[in-house]
């Protein structure tokens, strides 16, 4: 099959806007079951997103964004990501993310009674994803 037929539609929707919509050749992101990369003709699947970096590959062009929460619906020729929180690297405040990271790390290290560990860990993951997406 010709190269340009290996593209599928990627649509990323947030509650406030349509974040991204285009024909792409591959998309990678983090799910609760681990990292996945999706090409065209994937079997229909619904996955829950874990904080991480979203990588969109479109021909030679690679785009990245920090994706924090939501879920995705994969169909053979279309991928829809319902993102609760997603940011382009340009929109991220690195200083704030660093601060959030140290705060979350501290909370996890101290492990004080009454701390919601799951939430603290999630906050840490989010902060790390933000920082990494800017760095790369």
């Amino acid at each position: 099959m010709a190269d340009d037929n290996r593209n599928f539609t990627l649509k990323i929707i947030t509650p406030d806007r349509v974040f991204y919509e285009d024909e792409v050749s591959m998309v990678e992101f983090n799910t609760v079951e681990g990292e996945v990369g999706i090409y065209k003709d994937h079997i229909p699947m619904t996955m829950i997103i874990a904080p991480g970096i979203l990588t969109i590959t479109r021909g030679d062009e690679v785009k990245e964004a920090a994706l924090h929460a939501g879920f995705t619906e994969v169909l053979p020729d279309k991928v829809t990501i319902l993102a609760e929180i997603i940011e382009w690297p340009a929109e991220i405040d690195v200083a704030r993310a660093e601060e959030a990271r140290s705060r979350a790390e501290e909370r996890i290290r101290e492990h004080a009674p009454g701390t919601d560990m799951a939430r603290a860990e999630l906050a840490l993951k989010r902060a790390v994803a933000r920082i990494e997406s800017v760095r790369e």
Partner: protein
Amino acid sequence: MASMRDIKRRKGSIQSTQQITKAMKLVSTVKLQRAKQRAEQSKAYFNCMYETVTSMLAKAGGLNHPYLKAGASEKKAVVVITSNRGLAGGYNSNVVKLITKGDFKKEDLEIYAIGKKGKDTLQRHGYMIKEDDPDIIEEPSYVDAMAISRKLLASYAAGEIGEIYLAYTRFKNTVVHEPTLLKLLPVEASEAKADAQETGSKAMMNFEPEDDEALDMIIPKYVTSLIYGGLVEACASENGARMQAMDSATTNAEEMIDHLSLMYNRARQGSITQELTEIIAGANAIS
């Protein structure tokens, strides 16, 4: 007949009221445009969310998940979305009526109020106000919706409440706003199933992780998106309702001013005629 001075004063006061209503109409028109745009933008997310959840439930019909059956508690939580400011016609009272005139028992309800007007009225009627967040409605954000749904789901999981409802005003178009009572939890699987069949559900969907866990994670997001959708639509409806109310107020003021102008002119003419008659009568008496 009222004196000329009285009529003039009254006309002046109506004119200044009209100026206010006119200005308020303009403001809410602008706000409506913005809120409408937001409501439309969030619709894509909401529709997609709804489709996914219904197709999931259609497939997972037989699941015995806590989110799919009513909790043991008699208590019901209602999220009531109203505005902070009045002068919006029947906007707020229509939402409140959903609760006071609905078939709820007053003792069973816990109100999560968003917007001051609804909270004040329900409090006066003796309802239990559990939470009160008047600021959210000014600038609805997804983070706010997340905070509310987290609280609701925590009490639901703890068995403190058995059902969750959302009372808001649906924004159908600029002139039609429908007060709506929506059941958030438990999700009614049977209804959802029928809907999914109608829309000609998509090919067999696989879930990762398994159905049960996926439901655990998706349903809270579903509830959040419904609440957010409700907030955004209520915001649009509020401004739409205010625009309409102010529009008719302006028209009414115009009518009253016309009527008063007529009365004023008549009174003026009457007094001139009277003066003339007096002068002529006086002149006749002398000659």
